[in-house]
């Protein structure tokens, strides 16, 4: 028996970029995160060829989940064609040999920054969300040791106090993104900076959502069919952005989350934030055969 017979041949790069021990650790932490929904699991975030804060957490999870038969979709604030989305998509394809797609319905693995696609995800799809700040209590408790104790005690009174302060000062809840949400009735998590529009999509969803913060070295997850409830007062209902009546100026899509584009004359025009949904809408209008998936929202109303 020799050392050579016990070890693998040297390779210039591991499959999926991360070495086996790194992937094993991320997998274990993902399983823990799935076992305790909403609870943040620390992990040794590795260096990847991208700056911290640009999606390294999501990238490590994607690299760990990849296999050559998976279709990968990467979006950045809903867009498939932003520089960051294109770069990450190319990188994932290069290190895995996996096919890439922009079609939400075809994708097996969707890595996203700050949006959830408009089409309903299936049970066989995994959504990986990039998270800049995984600690929802940071704004009310800067000491992370105490914040962890607060999570352990389910001491979330100050999260409601934050909402109370917003209503007192502005007359309404001003939390636009990263809306704190109670997962499975136990842990409050930040759903990453997705708009309020997207938070209901996580509730009792078919798909698995994994949220990973590379800089902060934390993973948390929302398993399929898990309750995700935005924190609200009994007498102040949760409200999503009022985008139901807005029409996309490029595709004509209506009733979905829109990006506002300020115009020179002071007015605004809008385009649908989920770029692939916009492309599908245009192609459909042009007479092409396009498979349009079922959407979470219909005419601006959550319909699931």
């Amino acid at each position, binding site marked *: 028996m020799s050392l050579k017979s016990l070890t693998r041949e040297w390779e210039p790069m591991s499959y999926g970029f991360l070495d086996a021990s790194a992937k094993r650790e991320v997998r274990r932490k993902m399983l823990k995160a799935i076992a305790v929904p909403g609870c943040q699991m620390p992990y040794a975030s590795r260096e990847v060829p991208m700056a911290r804060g640009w999606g390294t957490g999501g990238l490590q999870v994607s690299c760990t989940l990849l296999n050559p038969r998976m279709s990968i979709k990467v979006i950045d604030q809903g867009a498939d064609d932003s520089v960051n989305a294109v770069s990450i998509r190319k990188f994932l394809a290069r290190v895995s040999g996996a096919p890439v797609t922009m079609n939400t319905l075809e994708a097996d693995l969707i890595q996203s920054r700050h949006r959830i696609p408009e089409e309903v995800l299936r049970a066989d799809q995994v959504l990986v969300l990039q998270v800049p700040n995984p600690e929802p209590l940071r704004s009310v408790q800067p000491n992370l040791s105490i914040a962890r*104790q607060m999570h352990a*005690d389910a*001491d979330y*009174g*100050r999260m*409601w*106090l934050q909402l*109370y*302060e917003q*209503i*007192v*000062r502005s007359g309404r809840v001003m939390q636009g993104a990263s809306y704190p949400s109670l997962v499975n009735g136990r842990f409050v998590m930040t759903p990453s900076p997705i708009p309020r529009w997207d938070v209901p999509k996580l509730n009792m969803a078919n798909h698995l959502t994994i949220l990973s913060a590379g800089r902060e070295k934390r993973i948390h997850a929302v398993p399929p069919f898990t309750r995700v409830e935005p924190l609200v*007062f*009994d*007498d*102040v209902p949760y409200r999503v952005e009022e985008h139901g009546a807005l029409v996309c100026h490029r595709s004509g899509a209506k009733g979905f989350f829109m990006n506002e584009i300020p115009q020179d004359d002071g007015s605004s025009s809008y385009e649908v934030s989920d770029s692939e949904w916009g492309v599908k809408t245009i192609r459909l209008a042009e007479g092409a055969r396009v498979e349009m998936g079922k959407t979470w929202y219909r005419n601006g109303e959550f319909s699931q």
Partner: protein
Amino acid sequence: MTLSLDAPRLVTTQPLLTARDVSKSYGAVQALRNVSATAYPGEVLGIVGESGSGKSTFLRCLNLEETPDTGSYTLDLPDVQGNLFDLDRFGRRMLCAKRIGIVYQNPHLGLLMTHSSSGNVAERLLIAGERSFATLRAKARGALEASEFPLERMDAPPIELSGGMQQRVQLAKAIALEPALLLLDEPTTGLDVSVQALVLDTLKRLQAERRITMVIVSHDLGVIRTMSDRVMVMRRGEVVEAGLADQVFQDPQHAYTQQLVHAKL
């Protein structure tokens, strides 16, 4: 030295608060030595002593912020049983949120200075599980009103308020859930005499109206004399004299108490 406070009393019922042989040391410094105290329902117990005598440490023990080395602490309440020093962190937090109120000498310890005053009061209600915005507003308003806080400023942050107003916000926060026990740690220290008098008047009125059991700590004999039914005198972590307020102030027995009572600038 251990002195029993059970002998001279105004009303004879079960004590609400019973602390026995509480000792606490920080390294080589013995902050409390076998301190025992009782407070009866609706009574005001004053604790007086020089700086460093251990009175604030004892109060922090009663507020379950500190765990003493030895001793026991019970509250005679229907849903509270056993030695409270044995409670875990969660139990302490829930008990303190619902049954014990505290006003600190330094408002920065008791208040979120950049949140609204009503929000500070609401925080206590939120910890206790209240989730209706309208109820939170109403209860915060009621507690601030009872503390004689000007309601037109109820949404101003404490950092913008005077020291007296900050103490009123602390008081409103402390009484918001109608606690069984109210702990006051030098509540008027640092305030000018006229504001001191106003805060003490508010405390006396609240005590008379709600019959809250209070433990007040001060180095100011005037405050203790004005407020207290019974008095404990502490020195170097020990109780040196205890009794009815008038008895202690008019006929002090211990040399240190005599020195305190007769001290003049």
